[in-house]
């Protein structure tokens, strides 16, 4: 982390921190995310008074209170909808949505998918810890099937959501994944999310040290992460493992892991990452099931998909301009009169 924050950077970071005491559990992954957001914001050239953080309910949703920017701590699941009203009416603001797997995918799932399809310029940070933390440890919509929790003593029966497949199915225009334990990558992904014009969904694997500690251990543990995590880079082949020992190539539409030490595979036979390729993005989001074991697909981190299309609020502005052109200045008297009036003398 020391590489990310120099003394002057630290001073700037603190200018985005509110005077409120941060009250997450010691060791919570949320601290890293907060720190990286506070570190990034001063570098973006946008003043704190033009930034708003909007959150729902849950551990992560306390986030706005800790930022010295404008902010709303809303109600459970509704942050994307609150943010939609704010951004649509105030396109000049940089609006960030802080949500979790319960808030964003369970009670607020509807708002998440609809904001994605509308492509409002919101930066949605989905803190995924695969558990309900604030209500003290029930399984969440991203918990692994069979998860033992207070409300599932014999194991949960629900199949978990695949959040990025869901987001792509909702016509999301920017999908990325990162993790709390890799602050450098996290900050890079935060920056990419900010830069994207349109709804960006950044799924952040975030460790809940109290109720679901180690949920992402396979991707964060030094001994295993090389084999389980794949860091996507634009125009680069899909490589992972120690010394990039493994690659992924496409056999038709089937991704296949190849051991580059064992097999003769040339670089151009490997899958080259292209963020703008929606078909490949679909396949990348499916690198999701049972991929902890040898020879199975690694979990991709980075920008899976990015597409630049007009945002909702840009198109709305065009309609407003068109209405002004067509109807001229507001004339309340004329509006009240309507088409058929009569005079009583």
């Amino acid at each position, binding site marked *: 982390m020391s590489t990310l924050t120099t003394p002057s950077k630290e001073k700037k970071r603190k200018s985005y921190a509110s005077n409120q005491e941060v009250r997450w559990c010691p060791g919570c992954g949320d601290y890293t995310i907060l720190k990286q957001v506070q570190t990034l914001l001063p570098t973006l050239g946008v003043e704190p*008074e033009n930034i708003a953080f909007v959150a729902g309910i849950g551990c992560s949703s306390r986030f706005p209170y800790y930022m010295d920017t*404008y902010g709303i701590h809303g109600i459970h699941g509704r942050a994307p909808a609150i943010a939609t*009203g704010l951004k649509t009416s*105030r396109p000049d603001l940089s609006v960030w949505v802080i949500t979790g797997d319960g808030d964003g995918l369970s009670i607020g799932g509807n*708002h998440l998918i609809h904001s994605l399809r509308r492509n409002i310029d919101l930066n949605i940070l989905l803190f995924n810890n695969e558990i309900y933390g604030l209500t003290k440890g029930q399984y969440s919509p991203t918990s692994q099937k069979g998860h033992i929790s207070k409300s599932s003593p014999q194991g949960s029966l629900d199949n978990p959501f695949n959040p990025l497949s869901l987001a792509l199915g909702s016509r999301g225009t920017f999908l990325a994944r990162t993790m709390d334990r890799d602050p450098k990558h996290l900050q890079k992904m935060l920056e990419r999310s900010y830069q994207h014009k349109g709804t960006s969904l950044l799924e952040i694997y975030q460790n809940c040290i109290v109720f679901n500690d180690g949920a992402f251990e396979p991707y964060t543990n030094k001994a295993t992460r090389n084999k389980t995590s794949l860091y996507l880079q634009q125009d680069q082949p899909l490589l992972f493992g120690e010394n990039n020992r493994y690659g992924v190539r496409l056999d038709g539409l089937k991704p296949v892991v190849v051991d580059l030490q064992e097999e003769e595979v040339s670089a151009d036979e490997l899958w080259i990452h292209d963020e703008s390729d929606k078909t490949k993005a679909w396949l990348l989001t499916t690198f999701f099931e049972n991929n902890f074991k040898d020879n199975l697909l690694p979990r991709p981190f980075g920008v899976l998909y990015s597409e630049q299309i007009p945002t909702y609020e840009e198109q709305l502005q065009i309609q*407003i301009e068109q209405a*002004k052109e067509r109807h001229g200045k507001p004339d309340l008297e004329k*509006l*009240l009169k309507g088409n058929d009036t009569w005079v*009583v003398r």
Partner: protein
Amino acid sequence: MSVIEKHKKVVTVRFSGDSGDGIQLTGSQFSNTTALSGNDLSTFPDYPAEIRAPAGSVHGVSAFQINFGSQRIHTPGDSCDVLVVMNAAALKANITSLKPGGIIIANMDGFGKKDLALARYDKTSDPLGDAKKSGFQLIKIDVTKLTRESLKDTGLSTKEMDRSKNMFVLGVVYWLYNRPLDPTIEFLTSKFKSKPEIAEANIKAMKDGYSFAIATEVFSERYTIEAAPIEPGSYRNITGNDAVVLAIASAAQTSDLPVFLGSYPITPASEILHGLSKLKHYGITTFQAEDEIAAITSAIGASYGGSIGVTSSSGPGVALKSEAIALATMLELPLVIINVQRAGPSTGLPTKTEQSDLFQALYGRAGDCPVAVLAARSPADCYAMTYEACKIAVEHMIPVIMLSDGYIANGAEPWKLPEVKDLYAIKPPLYRPAENGSDASPFFPYSRNEDFVRPWAIPGNKKTIHRIGGLEKEDQTGNISYDPDNHQHMTRMREEKRDAIAKKIPLQTIDEGPDQGPLLVVGWGSTYGSIKSAIMEAREEGYAVSFTHLKYLSPLPLNLGDLLSRFDKILVPEINNGQLIHVLRDTYQVQVEGFNKVRGQPLKVHELKAAIIEEFS
């Protein structure tokens, strides 16, 4: 045989037919022409919930009733003098609305064997014959045949010609009431600007209907209704939902604030979303949300950003918004919630009226959650009360629920146009300190003025950066606080803020009758017209009854308790199972009786009048 010309004071006409017969258009044209002729009037459309129920079936019947006269009119009329029926199903569905001895104008082409079967009349029955035997006057017209005959040279297909049947009938009724055809001719010409052949066909059918009535002398009488004594001024016809739209546009102008409407389509409130969607050039943004919750929470987000946040819905939709109304109460942001009530609970009777969401508006939230509640009394009053709702929401930083209902939302009446320059100002408590000023004093988002209202500081100002949220906030700073005394204090502040609105609203006045006496009738919302008519009739018959009508339900007018105490008995008519009655008992410890009907319809004047008279026995 010559036609006898008669003068009438009040007439009620009901047009009815299949949903595809253009009944609503016929009714609204008749209304416009009637208004232009100087009568006072009140109208009510009665259409089926199904978009296209099977043609010719009873539940596919659409109706439109208009009550008009040379005197003041307060309701669309309990029953009608003239019933137009385009088919057998329309007769079956509406015959009970016709006064004894009333006139039935029947399209005979809608009474064939097939039509009788579709209307579920017995094969061998003769419903029109039976109606005549029961004393109704029957005017038989082969509307379909005559319309086809009228339009045979137009080159239109039979199907197209049949679409003008309603205009033929309208022509007949125009003759019956001595009305000019010009307003409808102008309307048709403009409506079918791009299809002049359709405009011409409709105009010809109407003119031929008018001529048919002259030539065939099917009527023995013809009526004239003189203009009513109406306050001088410019008027238009307006429905409640249209009035809401205009009020919101007016508030945007006078407050100089943008408006953000978040809404989800629901009967009978959708016209508000439709109407405001056309007014983007008035600084109005409309957002059709994914659900009721997103509709209101998006409005809350916009309010935080400096817009007047508005959401429009009906009872079941408002239920879904409860938690967000509580959030806005906690955030202390302006928010206007329009509830166009319908018959409930649950999906209930979506197209039918009721005023059963008063409890929901007053109490339907978690926690102690005081909001302001207003109710409009008529279609035109929806303008005044929605404007008032915007003003209170903005100036007091509080959610305001404006209660309308299906009856006044769709019903129409003449509305005296307000002078734009006379609209009272809306002054938002915006706080925008100079950003480069030397003043370094900290900003307190939860400080309050003398009305307990906090400052509205919108994003973009360096000096007022702050966070708000649904967690209890510390007095002044707005920081999260779990302090017991602080919660007690803030709970009281929210209530006192709501109560302080009472100082700004008009004192309650007596609408009819003396200000003390044996009986006071207390109404609220859309029952105004029915109660007013019943009271006036009862008073004409010598009963010493008084009437007052509430438009402010939370907070209540400061003098209401005193006003109520001056009467021996209080009667509260409501289209619900008894709600205001509990509020009055609870607030003022007075004895109150209820008159409650929940039939999905406005109160019947004659029933209410009987109940009033009963109080004197």
